[in-house]
């Protein structure tokens, strides 16, 4: 979308500032300009929806599986071995 009014930012400007906009960081007048841009620009509004959806998409995709990963079990086994040895990281015995 080409710049129609002075207070409406261009597509590259909106693309660059979308995350700040979604956080409510820009000043009111800038937020208003971006809001108007998004109302009339399907491409930028689609990008906004994508960026808004990413966190939920990522959280759902990466949510913890019920069974711990083998690496997690290995880490626990290693930690317990070190704890039993009283090696580095063990508690101070006070002596």
């Amino acid at each position: 979308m080409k710049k129609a009014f002075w207070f409406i930012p261009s597509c590259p400007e909106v693309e660059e500032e979308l995350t700040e906009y979604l956080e409510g960081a820009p000043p009111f007048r800038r937020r208003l300009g971006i809001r108007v841009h998004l109302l009339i620009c399907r491409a930028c509004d689609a990008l906004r929806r994508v960026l808004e959806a990413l966190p939920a998409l990522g959280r759902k995709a990466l949510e913890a599986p019920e069974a711990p990963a083998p690496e997690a079990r290995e880490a626990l086994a290693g930690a317990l071995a070190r704890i039993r040895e009283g090696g580095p990281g063990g508690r101070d015995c006070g002596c």
Partner: protein
Amino acid sequence: MPDIPTEAETLARAQAGDPEAFGALVEPHLSLFYNAIVRILGNAQDAQDALQEALIGIHRDLPRFEGRSRFTTWAYPVCVNAALMVRRSRVRRREEGMEVRVSHGDGEGRPMEVEGSLDWSVEAEALDHMEQAEMRALILKALDEIPETHRIVFVLKDLEEWETEAIASNLGISLALVRQRLHRARMALQGRLKSHLSGRRP
């Protein structure tokens, strides 16, 4: 049949120094802890090492845990901090030359590659189009490909749901830089995931 000890009993024994009790205390939460770490580090081996250090730290500080909060609430930040420490100590490999560029338009005022995103499945239900494991692998790979400074902000903000102020404080950067890195990470991720999601909507 022997009584199954409660978490409070297990905690008390672990605080007294019983390694088996400590193992029993943390084992139900291993996935939670490990996933937080692996998201930050993006590497299974580094995550294993960081988790081991975190568990040692949790064990060391356990006598100071007074039970005013849930055990996971107290222990989880220890794991995140362990991951952040590993991250800080890493040689900043792959950073040079991997600066993610955000497209700046096609000369007509329209951002490049945005039009294609119109077909995106933008809800989390997009996962229905793919096997969870496939999407998981894809997102982990995409996270691994973006610069570490950007990934850490994305993970803390969008996956771990930290406040922007807390991220800025923890990483020692400004709020504006947090938002800038978050934006770069999101743009990079959407660019990498787009081809796998678009066009799959029935």
